C-alpha cells in the first residue's frame, strides 16, 4: 500500500488496523472534496438516509399488507415494483423488484454469490453476514446448513429455492402468514416480520413471541 500511515514508533495496538483504514478513508474524502468531485454536506445526507430512513421496516410493511389484503398480495406477486411503488413509502423502488412467495411446499432464499446485491429500497443495507464469504459460498450448495446456522429447520420435503441475484433484478421473500393472526391489523402483523424472513434465512415471529 502506498500509504504512509504507520505509527511513528511502529507500535500496533488493537485499534491500529482500523485507524489506518480511517485515515485512508479520510484522505480519500479530502482529495475528492478538494478536487471538487464531492460535497461533504451531500455525503452527510447520504449517510443519514441509510442510517435513519431506509430499513427492513419498509419490507415488513409490504408483507403485512400482503397478508392482510389479498388484492395487494396478487398485485405484489404479479409486479412488485408497481405494487410497492403504489404504496408511496419510498420515492422510487427501482424497476426490477420481484416478490417470491413461500408456500407449505416451497421455501425461498435470496443470495448474491458474486457480490452483495440486495433490495436496498425495501430492506435497507444488507447485514454483514449477507455480504460474507460463508453465506455467499454456502447458500447455493448447502442452504439447509445455512438455515441451521440461523436456527431454522424445515421439513425434509420442503423444496428450497435459492435465488442468486446475478443481475439488477432484486428479490424479496413473501413469508407465510403465521397461524393465529386472523383479524390482526397490518401494524400488528408487521411486528412479526423480521429482516431475515424477508431474505429467507428466517421465519416470521410467532404471535406468542410478541404478546409478552
Amino acid at each position: 500500500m502506498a500509504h504512509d500511515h504507520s505509527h511513528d514508533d511502529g507500535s500496533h495496538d488493537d485499534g491500529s488496523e482500523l485507524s489506518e483504514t480511517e485515515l485512508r478513508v479520510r484522505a480519500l474524502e479530502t482529495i475528492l472534496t478538494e478536487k471538487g468531485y464531492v460535497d461533504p454536506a451531500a455525503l452527510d445526507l447520504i449517510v443519514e438516509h441509510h442510517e435513519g430512513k431506509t430499513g427492513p421496516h419498509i419490507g415488513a410493511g409490504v408483507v403485512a399488507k400482503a397478508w392482510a389484503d389479498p388484492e395487494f398480495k396478487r398485485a405484489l406477486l404479479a409486479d412488485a415494483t408497481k405494487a410497492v411503488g403504489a404504496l408511496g413509502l419510498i420515492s422510487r423502488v427501482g424497476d426490477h423488484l420481484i416478490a417470491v412467495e413461500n408456500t407449505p411446499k416451497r421455501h425461498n432464499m435470496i443470495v448474491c454469490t458474486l457480490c452483495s446485491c440486495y433490495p436496498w429500497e425495501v430492506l435497507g443495507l444488507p447485514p454483514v453476514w449477507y455480504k460474507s464469504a460463508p453465506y455467499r459460498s454456502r447458500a447455493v450448495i448447502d442452504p439447509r446448513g445455512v438455515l441451521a446456522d440461523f436456527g431454522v429447520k424445515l421439513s425434509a420435503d420442503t423444496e428450497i429455492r435459492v435465488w442468486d441475484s446475478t443481475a439488477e433484478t432484486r428479490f424479496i421473500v413473501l413469508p407465510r402468514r403465521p397461524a393465529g393472526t386472523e383479524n390482526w391489523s397490518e401494524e400488528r402483523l408487521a411486528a412479526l416480520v423480521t429482516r431475515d424472513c424477508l431474505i429467507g434465512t428466517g421465519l416470521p415471529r410467532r404471535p406468542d413471541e410478541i404478546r409478552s
Partner: protein
Amino acid sequence: MNGVHDMGGMHGFGKVEPEPNEPTFHARWEGRVLAMARAMAFSGAWNIDMSRAAQEELPPAVYLAVPYYLRWTLGMERNLLKQGLVERDELAAGRALHPGKPVKRVLTKDVVERVFARGAFGRPTNTAARFNPGDRVRAKKLNPSTHTRLPRYTRGRVGRVEAVRGCHVFPDSVAAGGGENPQWLYTVVFDGRELWGEQAEPSLKVSIEAFEPYLEPA
C-alpha cells in the same frame, strides 16, 4: 473473470454468523465510503458494473481479507486512478496536488434525493427474446478474463427458463467500456443435482438471472 469473488459452492469459509442488533454502519468511515461511492457514481466517474469489476480485480488474498467497505475503498481508488481523476501521489499525500478534472455533475445537498432512487436497467429493444419460459437451456462454458455475471457453478449446466425479465444493460459490455449493449435477461432455474451431483440436497433448486449471451439451447 474467474476470481475469488465468484464463490458460490466453495467450501471452507465456515459458519454464517448473524450479529444481533447489527448497526447500519459499524464505524463512521463505513458510511463515508458508501456515500463517496454513490456520489462519485452520480458524477459519472463509474457505474455499478465498473465498481464491481474494480473490486473483483483486487488481488484474491486482499479481496478475502479486507472488511467490506475497505474493499469498496480499494475498488474506488483503482477506478479513480484508472479514470485519471486522482493521481497516485495524491493518494500517498492524502490531499489534492493537482486540479480536478471536469466531471459530468457533482452531487450537492439539493439534489441528493436523486441518488436514493434506484436506477433503471431495462432498455427498449426491437429484437425478440430467443428463449421462452419452459425452454431448456445450457449455461455456456465461458471463461472471460473480464467482468461477467455468469457464476462459475452454473457453466456447462442445463436449466430451464422460468421467466423473461426484459432487455437489460449488459454488465459484461458496460464494465469493459463497451457501452450498454442491452440483452434479454432470464431467470434460469437449475436442479440441485445438476449443479452439485448426486450428493446434492434432492429438494434444492437454484436460479440465476442470466443474460441471453450466457445461454444456448439444450
